[in-house]
């Protein structure tokens, strides 16, 4: 019991550190030029920053429109209170926060359809739109350029015992309590399955979708979370300064938040708070120095450029990096040493002893009474005049290993991409146990039970092996979208059992905590297969699983594929024909986009046309 508690306590070190910091700040920092009001203001920025860091630091979505939600939360709260619609500040805060979240839902729905530059421009433009809406059409309610004065302070308790939370220390305490609660919540979100998936989206969006997660919906979730945090902070701002200023909506506000986050450190949660402290301290203290009064923002701007060019982690990021580096340096060096030994050709351990009986918790393959698992019906894909794949049909029997072979340019990869709807066919369709998968998109197809390991590794390079597999395993257990923000990502026992079984099967158990980018090439290939496998597919597509492997690794991987075939249907594209004839029960041969032959391994081996195709062209007349 005591051991469990100390472990639990250690995992809450950041929360404790924040708590100590919040208590110590009003005692220590006033000596360094921070007034209590300045600290309260820093906390207000830190509060928007918590949400923004989930959006930008965690999910990698750079929004320049957070002012819109800050403003909506602030003005809805202020209007409800000043107009007398609501008398309770708490209710008004709740209403403001929810309004900001609702607005975030609308803007986010449009914004998350686009990525990168587009996303940033769209958020910025909607931020400006909100600014102008506040300023003109709604100025009757918002006061336009004058804002809303006279916002009341919150009251604790009822009737005669009610305590008004006045300016100064009481207001600081209120903000500190709210910030702490919001921080604890944000940390839970980061550690939840949703947080894990958001981080994976930043690392490799396409792979997250291919594993079966509904990427736009998760991005939207992060967007709405950020909007809710901003709305709450906006509502509190009006109460704090008993005035709701229109510049809450300005582009400056959004930009300031971005700068503070970079200065303090993205993906640290407290980064924006620290960045805000630096920004506001510089503003208030440099202004006191004659001659420097106008230069404080210039100093900040130069520091910001230096940070973006060089120290990309920001203040907290560098501290956390230094801290974890110190703790994990030896482990990382050991992992890199193992990688070097493997890549130098040395056997660190007996290469994949295949004696264990791995019982993967996979679904039984036969879900219908049909024994055809996957069927391609007249699939075609034309790129302009080029017919990459032209009317290919074949059936994959349930529980078999089915190979697709053909010379370079035969259309194998395009065909494969159509099987899981990564590329949509020009005509034709794909049936999985008799039901159509074509037209549903790659992540729905993954949910139906088709997984693919890619020709080129598509890993999450900075995540550990275990976390890579967890993203995959979570997809099938939780479905395309589940907003379970309060559970920890590793708290699903079936998922963890699945990960352990797959790591054992792939001989990656000793590498569980090694970041994927440190792994040796062969290990990365196995992890690539393992991720597809961790989604518990009914049909597993392997795109050149043996590419780039040494002969001994090839043998081991072939054995692995046979193991996997006990529990699911496999379709494999591979150039190594020896391996294919050893593995596959049926073989489909493509040539110049068309189906050349389809039969058992022996039939294909004896097929004259296939031999011609491989040995120098179908129309060659000279004997091979």
């Amino acid at each position, binding site marked *: 019991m005591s051991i469990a508690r100390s472990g639990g306590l250690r995992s809450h070190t950041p929360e404790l550190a924040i708590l100590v910091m919040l208590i110590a700040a009003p005692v220590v920092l006033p000596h360094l030029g921070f007034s209590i009001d300045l600290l309260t203001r820093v906390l207000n920025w830190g509060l928007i920053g918590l949400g923004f860091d989930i959006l930008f630091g965690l999910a990698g979505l750079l929004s320049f429109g957070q002012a819109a939600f800050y403003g909506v939360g602030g003005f809805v709260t202020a209007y409800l209170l000043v107009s007398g619609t609501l008398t309770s500040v708490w209710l008004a805060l709740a209403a403001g926060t929810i309004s900001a979240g609702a607005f975030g839902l609308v803007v986010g729905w*449009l914004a998350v359809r686009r990525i990168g530059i587009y996303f*940033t421009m769209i958020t910025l*433009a*909607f931020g*400006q*739109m909100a600014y102008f809406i506040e300023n*003109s059409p709604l100025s009757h309610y918002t006061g336009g350029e004058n804002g809303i004065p006279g916002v009341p302070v919150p009251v604790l308790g009822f009737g005669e015992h009610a305590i008004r939370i006045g300016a100064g220390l009481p207001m600081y305490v209120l903000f500190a309590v709210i910030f702490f609660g919001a921080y604890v919540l944000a940390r839970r979100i980061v550690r939840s399955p949703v947080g894990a998936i958001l981080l994976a989206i930043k690392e490799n969006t396409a792979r997250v979708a291919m594993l079966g997660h509904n990427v736009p919906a998760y991005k939207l979730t992060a967007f709405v979370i950020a909007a809710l945090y901003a709305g709450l902070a906006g509502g509190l701002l009006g109460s704090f300064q008993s005035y709701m200023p229109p510049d809450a909506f300005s582009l400056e506000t959004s930009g300031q938040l971005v700068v503070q986050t970079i200065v303090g450190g993205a993906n640290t949660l407290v980064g924006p708070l620290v960045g805000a402290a630096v920004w506001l301290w510089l503003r208030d203290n440099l202004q006191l120095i004659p001659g420097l009064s106008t230069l404080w923002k210039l100093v900040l*701007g130069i520091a*910001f450029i230096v940070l973006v060019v060089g120290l990309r982690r920001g203040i907290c990021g560098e501290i956390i990096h230094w801290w974890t580096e110190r703790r994990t340096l030896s482990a990382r060096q050991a992992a890199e040493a193992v990688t070097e030994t493997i890549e130098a050709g040395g056997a660190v351990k007996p290469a994949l002893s295949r004696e264990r009986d791995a019982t993967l918790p996979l679904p039984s393959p036969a879900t219908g009474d049909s024994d055809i698992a996957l069927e391609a019906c007249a699939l075609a894909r034309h790129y302009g005049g080029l017919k990459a794949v032209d009317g290919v049909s074949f059936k994959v029997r349930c529980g078999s290993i089915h190979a697709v072979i053909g010379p370079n340019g035969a259309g194998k990869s395009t065909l494969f991409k159509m099987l899981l709807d990564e590329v949509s066919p020009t005509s034709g369709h794909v049936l999985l146990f008799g039901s159509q998968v074509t037209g549903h998109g790659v992540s729905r197809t993954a949910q139906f039970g088709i997984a693919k390991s890619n020709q080129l590794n598509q890993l999450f390079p900075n995540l550990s092996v275990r976390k890579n597999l967890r993203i995959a395993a979570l997809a099938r257990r939780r479905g395309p979208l589940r907003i379970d923000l309060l559970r920890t990502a590793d708290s699903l026992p079936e998922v963890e059992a699945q990960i352990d079984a797959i790591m054992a099967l792939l001989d990656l158990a000793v590498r569980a905590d090694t970041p994927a980018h440190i792994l040796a090439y062969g290990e990365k290939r196995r992890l690539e297969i393992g991720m597809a496998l961790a989604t518990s597919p009914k049909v597993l597509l392997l795109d050149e699983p043996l590419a780039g492997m040494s002969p001994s690794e090839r043998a081991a991987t072939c054995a692995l594929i046979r193991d996997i075939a006990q529990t699911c249907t496999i379709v494999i594209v591979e150039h190594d024909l020896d391996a294919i004839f050893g593995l596959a029960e049926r073989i489909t041969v493509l040539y110049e986009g068309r189906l050349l032959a389809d039969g058992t391994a022996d039939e294909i081996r004896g097929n004259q046309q296939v031999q011609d195709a491989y040995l120098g062209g179908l129309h060659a007349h000279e004997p091979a």
Partner: protein
Amino acid sequence: MPSWPALASQAFNGLALGSLLALVSSGLTIILGTLGVLNFAHGALFAVGAYAAFVMLQYTQSFLLAIAVGCGFMLVLGFLLERLIIRFFYGRPHEDQILVTYGIGIVLVECVRAVFGGNAQRVPTPSWGQGATQLGFLIYPTYRLQLIAIIATLLVGLYLVLYRTSMGLVVRAGIENPGMVGILGINLRRTFLLVFAIGVVAVGLAGMLYAPVVAVTPDMGANFMAQSFVVIVLGGLGSFPGAVVGGLIAGEIVSLTSAFNSSYSEVMLYALMALLLVLRPQGLFGSEGRV
């Protein structure tokens, strides 16, 4: 319902604003299309241009000479920014590019503020642009008419550079497929430098030409930058014709809406963008795929 002369006057205002936005946005869009960098310092460079006109006018007393010297200044500034900072960001994520150009924007605006203070400055209308011109049924400020003509000429010039020179061919090829241009052995380094500088001169020129029409402040560029983002979303990222047509559409929307209800003029612009994002996300002239 506003009167016809008022509506016509607003249509001309829309043309003036629209041509200005077209110039600002084409600078933004060729940089984005060729270099792949969304230049968040664009608004600041607009302000720098306006201040350049302000300073040069004090020394030269000639608007045209001021503009010529100002262009030289913007060109040098563009070269310096590209060589010293931007070029190190071609291989980095879009987010980093946005952040560093945003930082450059802050520094430029604060430098301007440090030198000239935060108060609005006035740039006088050039002597040849004084007064108003009788256009049949309405009287319209002469300088704004000249502004439209000057910018139209500049855009034609930019068109000729982009579509009639070998460098323009490289730029347009770079927009289509930057990787392929590099493979063909064309020195992109020099092209990138030139394109960035041309983009900077374009937005600086826009700032100089617009300076007599508005109050010149360090922050004057922010709203233009936001509007030019809308323009290039409308026109399609990286598309020069898209920037011109999108700029004119945006200018007319802002101006004509304000003829009916001025409080909705800016809102309508962003509402249109939202609508377009739903119906045609690649923009009017854009093709799906790039960015």
